[in-house]
């Protein structure tokens, strides 16, 4: 099983209840709660679906710690 983490060029910020995700070309917004659920889903057997749905944001990593590490690394500021 592989795990979904952010692509290297992705940055996100959390503000006022929303997550703003920037894939390097553009930004988009989603509820912070939904964003948390998405990150969590990427660390389960649903990881493929997460990547398929947001292919410019996520990619698959071989280990869970590796994928999780991208969560902190991609946070803006």
């Amino acid at each position, binding site marked *: 099983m592989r795990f979904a983490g952010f692509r290297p*060029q992705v*940055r996100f*910020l*959390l*503000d*006022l*209840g*929303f997550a*703003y995700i*920037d894939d*390097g*070309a*553009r*930004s988009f*917004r989603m509820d912070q709660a939904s964003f948390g659920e998405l990150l969590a889903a990427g660390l389960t057997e649903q990881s493929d679906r997460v990547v398929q749905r947001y292919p410019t944001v996520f990619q698959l990593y071989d280990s869970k710690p590796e994928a999780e590490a991208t969560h902190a690394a991609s946070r*803006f*500021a």
Partner: protein
Amino acid sequence: MPPHDSPEVRVALVATPLGGPPSQVQPIGSMTIGSYVMATMGPAARAVVFNFSDSPAGRRAALDQILAFRPSVVGFAVYSSHVREVVAWAGELRECLPGATFVAGGPHVTLTGAGFVARWGKIFDFAVLGDGERPFLAIVQAVRSGDLGGLRDEPGVGWLDGSAVRLSPPAEPLPVAEWADPFLCPVQHDGDPLIFTDRRDRRVRRAVALVSSRSCPQKCSFCAIIAMPGAWRAAPTANLVDWLVRERDRESFDHIYFLDANFFVSAPRVRELIGELHNRLPGVTWSTSSTVGFLLQMAGEIPWLIDRGLRGVEIGIESGSAEELRFLNKRVSIARNHEAVELIQRHGLELGLDFIMFYPDQTVGQLRENLVFLQRARLLDEEFFDHYLNTLQLYPGTPLRALFEDRQGGPFDPDELPDPEPLFRDAAIRSIYQVFIHDFAGQYLPAIRRKIAYLQRRSRELRSTDPAAGQAMRMQAILLRHVPFKVLWNLCDRPDARTASEALPWLRDFDLSGERIAELARPAAAVPV
């Protein structure tokens, strides 16, 4: 006055700055009046609209342009936000044009009627009340014939007779079949051309503006439109489309602003108009204004309208407080307001947000309800900040102005929109307003606006050469856009704050370097909503 000896009467219709920050305002009323005069009198009259609403020229330079036209009749559109500005322009012009006839019309003249004539009848020879086409035409024809006496019998005209105010009987609304093509009258304008930024099609469109209907069937207690004579009425579809087709032949455009008070009042009319418009002007897009209920009645047809050019809707949300919506007689619920915003967002349309952040009887809880509405409706990232700054305006002739005049035991200055500050009942709201409007909006917001514009432009420029830097700038712009919300939210928690930086310490040592902006992303600086 002797009969006019030139082959034509020259009519200058002047749109002066509207008060407040410079803004591009289309002089639709003046265009309509001038066009009606030209359509009726043909070569006997030459009308020009001088639009200085957003002109970079000072008043003197603007007046020189009008003087060069040598008008015999000078008309001014008067709004309640700039009465003394118009009077000053007219006074200066009158000294230079002693033989010309000066006319005032527009909403403020209609709303204040006899009082306006009493106060300003020495500056303006005539006031025009209600639909201005016929009364103004009668004035131009009287100037041409040299017999102004006949105007006493013309409905919708006011004048000063010595010190006595004279008003003829009220004019009936002009039948819609008689509305003139508003593009007949040329507009002299040295500001920026009218454009529409179409994010859906990723292009900037050259635009025209007109109204397809007048008045509104709603009865919102703050709205000056309900104090005007005449029920909601709309131009015939065939006429409207003919006007636009002819204008496009004269000067190409590819977007139409329908500046109606409430465009979607009649769904069958909208279907007919937009269907015909699409047939005759394919590829032309349009945007308009609506109240929530009339927009939602067409919710199922939004995709059809988008296919036929709909790109944006300005909606009168006004408040996030149910109590305030009742006070404003909006006849809409918070849930319906959310539904309307969500409808526009779901379809990727541009959203124009009419929202009154501050009002006299507000409590801190209700101010917070406004902010919660903006947050839940995902309206934190709007391009403009007006909705954070708007205060309830008490227009002449409205039920709310009468209510507050009763409360203070006397009338407000009839030619001013009252200063809201003394009207706040809750000292905490007054304090929040002072800090937010005077300190934050005065001292910090202009620089924040400029910085956001810079970041957006620069991030586009860096897209291919330095995408990471462009990305950081997009993030910084998002954070800066949230600053007004955070200041206002924190002021609700700390209404005793004397400065904006007490409410949002980030504003201390204010600088807009990237590092400082990024500090706004730290959880400690976020507002827990």
